[in-house]
């Protein structure tokens, strides 16, 4: 093993040692907000956040059922009668008159619903009584579905899966209306009165306030966003939709079209997905079911001829394709079922070695889809004819470069960087090795 291999091993070992050493040495007390995302997640699911239910990308079922609610604001049940418009505009009450805890709230897990005692002050009720308010208004004045002296439905409002610091926002000059909008005409406030992404981005533009996703959305330990509150595949996931940042809307064709989007900003994908997610398909051991149907093996040659650029994103022609084709008998064999005259031959029986420019010849096909050739052949196949007769492994002097290659900058670039490749076809002293504009 060369010293560089040892260096390579040392880099890997070092990285592992750093992680293990740091992770196993004396643990200090962890009372700070280091895992700042935990409370939101725990409250949302009612227990510890063991997982949010990631599944291998190769498996199907990406378009599963979807329960009600949003990935940020879980479904609420608020069986109350409450007219915000009247309280705020007719009675002139400030928001903090009822939402007393809001100005000091630091996290989205804080319960900011008015305490029942807050209502008692004006409504004359007495929620402290175990048998219900006495002498005041009937329960159904405020509680929907309440009987004469009993309440059967309760408020269920799981906290938003968000980071939100009311105190910090108020300190920076924001008002309730800035995020929640006006209460004019609003009776019962619902999730519709909670901040929407578009309004957040008004200030969170990357300059006035941070615009990274984890500014507002809780993250897992590894920094990726929590896409679901818990492991329930029916829960709506935090999936980019139309008008989402960076045009990453996951529409029905996103799997087919995501390459161009990901290439423009790979880091954007890492907001939710880690490298393992990419490798599930791009370096996977299992056929991705969203991409290839079960019968794909039989018909894949048609796709390979048409969409080789898509194939190449997951399959290396000289390992994956060639490895399988060699095993089942494709390749450089002149005999056998895939050879000339064989019943399963790939190339036409005649005319395959014809001149360039005519469809049905190997030159024509190779110019348009060389990767398809490389899926069965290695370079040696080409050298048999395309090497010069003076090369170490002589060929037939068939020039594959195309017109004007010797005088092109491409020839200069290739020769200056990998002369060894040139010498596979040319002898070291071959005048044809000369490149540059002066060469005809």
């Amino acid at each position: 093993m060369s010293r560089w291999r040892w260096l390579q091993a040392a880099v890997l070992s070092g990285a592992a040692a750093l992680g293990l050493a740091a992770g196993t040495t004396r643990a200090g007390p962890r009372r700070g907000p280091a895992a700042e995302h935990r409370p939101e997640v725990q409250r949302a699911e009612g227990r510890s956040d063991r997982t949010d239910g990631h599944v291998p990308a190769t498996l199907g079922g990406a378009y599963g059922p979807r329960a009600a609610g949003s990935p940020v604001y879980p479904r609420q049940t608020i069986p109350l009668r409450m007219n915000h418009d009247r309280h705020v505009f007719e009675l002139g009450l400030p928001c903090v008159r009822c939402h007393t805890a809001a100005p000091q709230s630091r996290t989205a897990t804080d319960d900011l619903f008015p305490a029942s005692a807050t209502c008692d002050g004006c409504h004359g009720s007495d929620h402290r009584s175990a048998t219900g308010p006495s002498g005041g208004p009937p329960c159904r004045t405020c509680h929907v579905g309440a009987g004469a002296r009993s309440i059967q439905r309760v408020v269920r409002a799981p906290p938003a899966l968000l980071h939100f610091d009311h105190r910090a926002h108020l300190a920076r000059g924001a008002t309730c209306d800035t995020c929640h909008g006006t209460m004019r005409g609003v009776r019962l406030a619902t999730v519709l009165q909670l901040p929407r992404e578009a309004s957040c981005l008004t200030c969170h533009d990357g300059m006035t306030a941070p615009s990274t996703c984890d500014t507002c959305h809780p993250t897992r330990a590894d920094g990726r966003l929590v896409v679901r509150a818990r492991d329930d595949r029916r829960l709506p996931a935090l999936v980019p939709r139309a008008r989402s940042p960076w045009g990453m809307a996951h529409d029905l064709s996103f799997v087919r079209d995501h390459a161009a989007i990901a290439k423009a900003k790979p880091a954007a994908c890492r907001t939710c997905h880690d490298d393992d997610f990419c490798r599930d398909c791009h370096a996977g051991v299992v056929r991705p079911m969203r991409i290839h149907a079960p019968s794909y093996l039989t018909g894949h040659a048609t796709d390979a001829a048409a969409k080789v650029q898509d194939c190449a994103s997951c399959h290396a022609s000289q390992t994956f394709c060639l490895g399988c084709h060699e095993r089942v008998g494709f390749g450089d064999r002149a005999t056998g079922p895939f050879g000339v005259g064989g019943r399963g031959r790939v190339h036409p029986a005649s005319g395959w070695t014809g001149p360039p420019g005519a469809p049905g010849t190997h030159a024509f096909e190779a110019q348009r889809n060389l990767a398809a050739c490389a899926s069965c052949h290695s370079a040696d196949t080409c050298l048999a004819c395309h090497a010069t007769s003076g090369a170490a492994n002589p060929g037939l002097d068939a020039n594959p470069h195309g017109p004007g290659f010797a005088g092109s900058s491409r020839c200069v670039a290739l020769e200056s960087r990998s002369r060894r490749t040139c010498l596979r076809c040319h002898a070291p002293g071959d005048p044809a090795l000369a490149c540059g504009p002066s060469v005809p």
Partner: protein
Amino acid sequence: MGPRTAAPGTARTAVRSRARWGGLGGVVLLIVALAPCRASAGDVTIRSRTYGEGYVVLVPGSEGRLLRRRRLAQILSLGVFDLLPPDPAADPARRGRLGFRATVRIRHDFGDFQRRAAGRAATLVRAEDGRAVDLLGAALEGRRLFGALDLRIGRQIDQYGLDFFAFDGGFVRVRTPVPVAFEALGGLAVRATDLLGYPEMSVDGVPPTEVSTGPRFVAGGGVLVDGPSWIFGRVGYRQVFERSAPAAPGEPPRRRVAEEILSAQVRLRLAKGIVSPYGAVRYDVAGARVSDLSLGTDLAFGGGRHLLRVQYLRTHPVFDLDSVFNVFFTTPFSDVRLGYQVNLGRTALHARWQVRRMLADRTASGAEPPARALGGTGVQAGVSHRRRRFALRADAFARGGPEGRLGGASVEARTFVFHQRLALDTRAYYTYVDGVGSTAGGGHLWAVQIGTDTRLYSGIHLHLLVEEAGSPTMRSSFRVFGALSLDWQIRGGTR
């Protein structure tokens, strides 16, 4: 350092010994240096995927000979995060993070697919599949360290070449007070023949059996604009090279480049997200041509209900510079894609059109191409409907071109039962191939899948699937597939 043959035996042994002890000493020093730290690994993630499958493959062209595949693959990912001591005063969204994650893949083929490989195939198979353990990633990753530094050390993936490129080494990004950052990376490329290496994310073009054995270095860097919510941009450079070696007997030693690329990327978010254009280009410096270009835009209107996507992609095949495939005259692929989706509450409708051209590009000198362009067109439509416990998706497509014509449809459904613990999946596929470009012949291809996804426990899922498929050359084939996945995050310490 020259290739292995350049050093005499004794000297080489001494060099190996020094390097070995140097490497081990470095590791020990790192451990010793970190031992007294008040580190606190509070978050551990465990992810395990166990895949098992068995199926048969009919050997094309043979008289009904079947190859049996029985494969088992285990992917194990372990992560330790939040290694830095807590800082109550830090802004949670901007505090530094340090973590480590490693992913190992163990695989084995029990079927006769591998055993029957002979001759050159056997050599290739051994090089590719003979090693059963792949180290897919192992990196220490820091983000926002000291408020301005991102780094990764170890085995990682670089995607800024508009591809997946695996290397062992370091990556660092330094942020500045303005929304501009500088990046640099360096290390050794991962190859199929390396110890714990794997082939999928290395430069293609040379079979593992013929690749040079010397170390391959990678170096690169870039400048990016990231911060404002409306723009991202980056310009980067990456080179993969080998140290100097004589190209042929009598030739002077030369440093050899395996890949050299320049890339640029940009994404914009305009009109409050209504228009989101993006683009990326890769210029192959060694090949003196644009090898990858993608441009596109998303147009979201109607309050986000409607989404229109337009993309243009242009790809020119590029191989490892050690391959003679690079010197052949080739023409690029070009795609124009147009997609439209409308979301109607629980239902989404989608339509997509694609036209592909195998461009007759000008030659290297600018001369007219020797032959005309060829192209093909495809259309696709889909609908999905989702309810609380049930989801359905149906797709249909048709495509035609020089490679032949295809048409087909698929339907899939999923429903949850038993308190959302059990998902039942059904899928059916049909494809017609006219056989022009298929070695297996044209005809009707069909397949049916029935599967389950059982939530055994929070984060533990068992997927079982059986499928039956048929085609003109393979009257029926049966496949059984199982996957046990575990995805856990454990919080340690006293938090």
